[in-house]
């Protein structure tokens, strides 16, 4: 199976990142913080996890608080691809294409076990699933769960921010108080 | 002193607008892509509007922008999109030299006559035009020029009706 998946991998030659216009360290740092604080996800749901992705944007968990509520339908305007759901072999080329259509500073979250590894749909003689989105596009953050709760996705968002800026910006949930909502 | 500076500025503006007109005109005529040609036409229109401004007729300049840019070029754009939206349907491809020569001759002939007339026999003119009120213009339209005004209204109405009729014929053919 792994051998077959090799066919799906292709060099990401088309997505050569342009040299940044301003390449000074402090500027870059500020820019990175800005990027981290305004990660616009793409409206791209694949399966069950997409529903939890919706919850993540909705009133109760409100990703808007972290500047991530602007779900853009066009890949050209989004920064964050949340691969939420099972990737079938038929879908795989399109995921790659969407990734390539997204302009350069872009991040990928593999949400849910299907996107990470094929999850519950991996079994003997299985023929239609790409076993993990990291086989076809580079993934920055993995969020396990089937499906993960919206908190998990928020944590994933924080992880992307951490990857960008090198620090976690928000308190850990362990110290949190329990809300009555 | 101040006046001199302003005059220089005025000349610069004049020549700037003329340059825009000339460049726009050439783009309009020579561009292979019709949409680019349209953009060239819009450049020209803006240049002419600028000249109207310089002639102290801001109302006409703005009407130029409103009617030409806001309506006519949008209509032409629509026509381009509806008839040849994709490359190949427009002006790509080579054009025979003979055609260019004939076209050039056709263009130069009036240029020589009219240009000579304009240069050699300039009518008396002055530098500083007056600006007139829009209200005066309107009164002029409604009192002295009522017939042309009505005619142009009629023309527009007829054109609209004709367009609608043609479009309906098109739909019926579907």
């Amino acid at each position: 199976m792994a051998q077959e998946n090799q066919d799906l991998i292709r060099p990401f030659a088309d997505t050569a990142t342009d040299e940044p216009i301003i390449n000074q360290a402090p500027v870059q740092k500020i820019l990175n913080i800005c990027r981290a604080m305004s990660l616009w996800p793409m409206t791209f749901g694949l399966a069950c996890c997409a529903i939890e992705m919706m919850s993540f944007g909705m009133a109760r968990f409100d990703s808007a608080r972290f500047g991530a509520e602007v779900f853009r339908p066009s890949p050209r305007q989004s920064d964050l691809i949340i691969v939420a759901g099972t990737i079938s072999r038929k879908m795989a080329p399109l995921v790659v294409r969407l990734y390539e259509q997204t302009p350069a500073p872009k991040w990928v979250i593999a949400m849910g076990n299907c996107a990470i590894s094929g999850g519950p749909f991996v079994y003997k003689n299985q023929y239609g699933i790409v076993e993990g989105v990291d086989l076809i596009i580079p993934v920055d953050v993995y969020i396990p769960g089937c499906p993960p709760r919206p908190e998990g996705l928020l944590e994933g968002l924080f992880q992307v921010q951490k990857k960008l800026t090198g620090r976690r910006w928000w308190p850990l949930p362990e110290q949190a108080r329990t809300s009555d909502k | 002193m101040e006046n001199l500076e302003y005059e220089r500025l005025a000349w610069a503006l004049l020549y700037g607008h003329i340059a825009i007109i000339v460049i726009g005109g050439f783009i309009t005529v020579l561009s292979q892509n019709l949409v680019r040609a349209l953009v060239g036409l819009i450049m020209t229109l803006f240049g002419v509007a600028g000249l109207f401004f310089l002639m102290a007729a801001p109302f006409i300049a703005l009407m130029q922008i409103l009617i030409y840019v806001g309506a006519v070029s949008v209509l032409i754009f629509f026509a381009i999109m509806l008839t040849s939206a994709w490359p190949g349907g427009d002006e790509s491809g080579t054009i025979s030299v003979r055609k260019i020569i004939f076209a050039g001759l056709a263009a130069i002939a009036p240029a020589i006559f009219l240009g000579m007339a304009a240069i050699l026999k300039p009518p008396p003119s002055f530098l500083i035009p007056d600006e007139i009120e829009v209200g005066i213009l309107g009164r002029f339209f409604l009192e002295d020029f009522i017939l042309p005004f009505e005619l142009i209204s009629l023309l527009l109405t007829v054109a609209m009706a004709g367009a609608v009729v043609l479009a309906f014929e098109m739909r019926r053919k579907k």
Partner: protein
Amino acid sequence: MIVKSLRETMLGMWSLLVGMKVTAVNFKSTQITVHYPREVVHSLEGYRGHIELVPSDEDPYKPKCIACNNCVRICPSACISLTAIKPKKKAAEKTEAPDSADEVKTKGKKEAPAKKAKPELESFVCDYNYCCLCGLCVQSCPTGALRYSSNVYLAGFTRQEFVLDLLSRLQNQAQKKEQ
């Protein structure tokens, strides 16, 4: 007819105003957002997260598990793998966390459940990447050695982070509790 359509339009306009009133009322009402990293939802109880081992009653460092392999066999995604040593045998080969599902599967089958002496758990690995949170393992456990954790905050940079070594997690938890 004109009167009817006019009336309809007027009623329609009124309905638009009613809609705007609804949103205005909601604008004023209290918010329902849980400010997540600062506060957590009240209702995580009952949520099936990934599984954890339950410590035995006498020793918080030792799991209740008797390595019967029931959970391995029932698991639809084959994400659990456990190895056990019989108390008498000393040197048991150490197995590392398996990488792929196939390996897990074969391993699960290879390890025959030790029936005679009470075997001691050597490693208990749950590859959370494959888990589908059905809870069959917990239900099939004869000794109640498994429980759900309510850790829903998992997210990481590699998928290897979620190959959970439950035994060491258990020991860590016991340590923390002692402190």
